[in-house]
């Protein structure tokens, strides 16, 4: 079998891709952001319900490749019930891991470490980053009192 292929599409990633978490719509939406990957066409909507600066509920809807969908699903799992500031730190750690600047993730990151395999496929790093960058933008807007801003985040400008 092809090892770098199976390293990128680890079983855990394929499992998240087939059964993504956070698909269920939420009733109360305090933060809403959209993101896209113009070069491959991946699109994502992230919605949060925030109470006392804690993410009470999250809804992610990602249309894209296996990597972007799995990454979004893992994100939904990680950030629920966490304070916004901690989530910002978490997203930064994930970004560093994908860029090869961080090797070991804290235990609580669970499956996310499996996304490391995309590093061998540089063009796919953007796919793994999409959900995280979109979430960060949403939180930033929310903290600026503008959580429902309808501006689309693009991974291209972040590169």
């Amino acid at each position, binding site marked *: 079998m092809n090892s770098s*292929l199976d390293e990128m599409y680890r079983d855990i990633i*394929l*499992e998240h891709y*087939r059964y993504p978490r956070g698909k269920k719509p939420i009733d109360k939406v305090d933060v809403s952001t959209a993101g896209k990957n113009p070069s*491959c066409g991946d699109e994502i909507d992230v919605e949060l319900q925030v109470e006392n600066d804690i993410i009470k509920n999250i809804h992610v809807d990602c249309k894209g490749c296996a990597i972007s969908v799995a990454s979004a699903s893992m994100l939904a799992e990680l950030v629920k019930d966490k304070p916004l500031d901690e989530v910002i730190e978490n997203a930064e750690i994930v970004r560093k891991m994908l860029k090869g600047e961080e090797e070991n993730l804290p235990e609580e990151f669970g499956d996310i470490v499996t996304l490391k395999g995309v590093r061998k496929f540089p063009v796919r790093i953007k796919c793994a980053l999409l959900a995280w960058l979109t979430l960060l933008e949403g939180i930033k807007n929310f903290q600026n009192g503008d959580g429902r801003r309808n501006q689309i985040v693009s991974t291209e400008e972040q590169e």
Partner: protein
Amino acid sequence: MTSDLKSEIMTDSKKLSFDSSKIQDDFPILETKINGHRLVYLDNAASSQKPEAVINALDNFYKTTNSNIHRGLHTLAEKATNAYEHCREHVAKFIGGVSCEEIIFTSGTTESTNLVANSWGNENIGEGDEILITEMEHHANLVPWVLLAQKKNALLRQIPITTDGTLDLTDINKLINEKTKLLAVTHMSNVLGTINPIKELIELAHKNGALTLIDGAQAVPHMPVDVKDLNADFYCFSSHKMLGPTGVGVLYGKKEILEKMPPYILGGEMIREVSFEKVTFNDLPHKFEAGTPNIADVVAFDTALTYLENIGMENIRNHEIEISKYAIEKLTEIEGITIQGPLDETIRGAAISFTDRDVHPHDISTFLDSRGIAIRAGHHCAQPLMKVLKTVATARASFYIYNDRADVDYLAETVKEMRRYFRG
């Protein structure tokens, strides 16, 4: 015997001699292993591979002939000039027997369209004029016109496409009208594979007083093209998609039109006489070839043309009709796979786009690559077309002379394996 019948019989007898597996032996790269598998190269619409003869021609030029052209008076300069100009004669013959003055070497189709937009377009398009393109254009035959139209306050209009991926000509008599100054259309779509009825469109454009530019990047490599018979005013294509080196393109233009156009790159080689006060431009085609051109690659392109002629463009077309038919048959059999473009192999080329109901094109392409198959996934430099197709990207397998039915079988099997892999 009518000439039609004659060519049919000739084609038939020649067809028997078309043997992709023999052709494969001429392409050293096909021996490469990709991720432990035999390379099955199905990204020919992006760029073709090169036969040994072309690689040798390039090597040989630098070893025996290398020199600048048109300026030295020594033996090598003359030899290099002759080799370069020989290719021009060859190109002129290859596309239907036009004059050498009408063949301009550029760096590729993209530079060819840009040359026309910047030179002819800049002089001849004015406020309220219309430029007509189609919804299936490559960015190379789209972006120059979008910008020109903006700059000149002209109107850029598009011929729409139907759901089966052919041009929708219902309103063509309104779309081409007395305001139309240029019709710029692709001969064959790099995404859908559709071969457009350009001869009819050119005639209609001419009736309305418009000029025509044909993007032949996907046509000239794959079928006989006679620009005189088509009566195209400009015709553009690239060497690298037809077995030749990268960095060489062709702009064919009718002499009487080219003569009136100003050069768009200025420098050496394109002037006859120059002082600090006045410049007289050189004759065609040199007026449009300022500076030192891509000599070695042009010379090797000559060899690519010979290679194609030895196989026969008619034979290549027939081979691709056959392989398209087989590939469409095999791919449509697979649950969840949809072909984007015409299903009738007689009105299309062998660039076959498909989408999977469940799997993103990038995942398809990564998986196929792990099995040695090179395809293209993405928007194929045709973002407006993706919008029309209501998709963001497609996977595209594009075939050429060295591809055979075994490649199609392997592709179809691997696509099935890919679906099992991602769907679980």
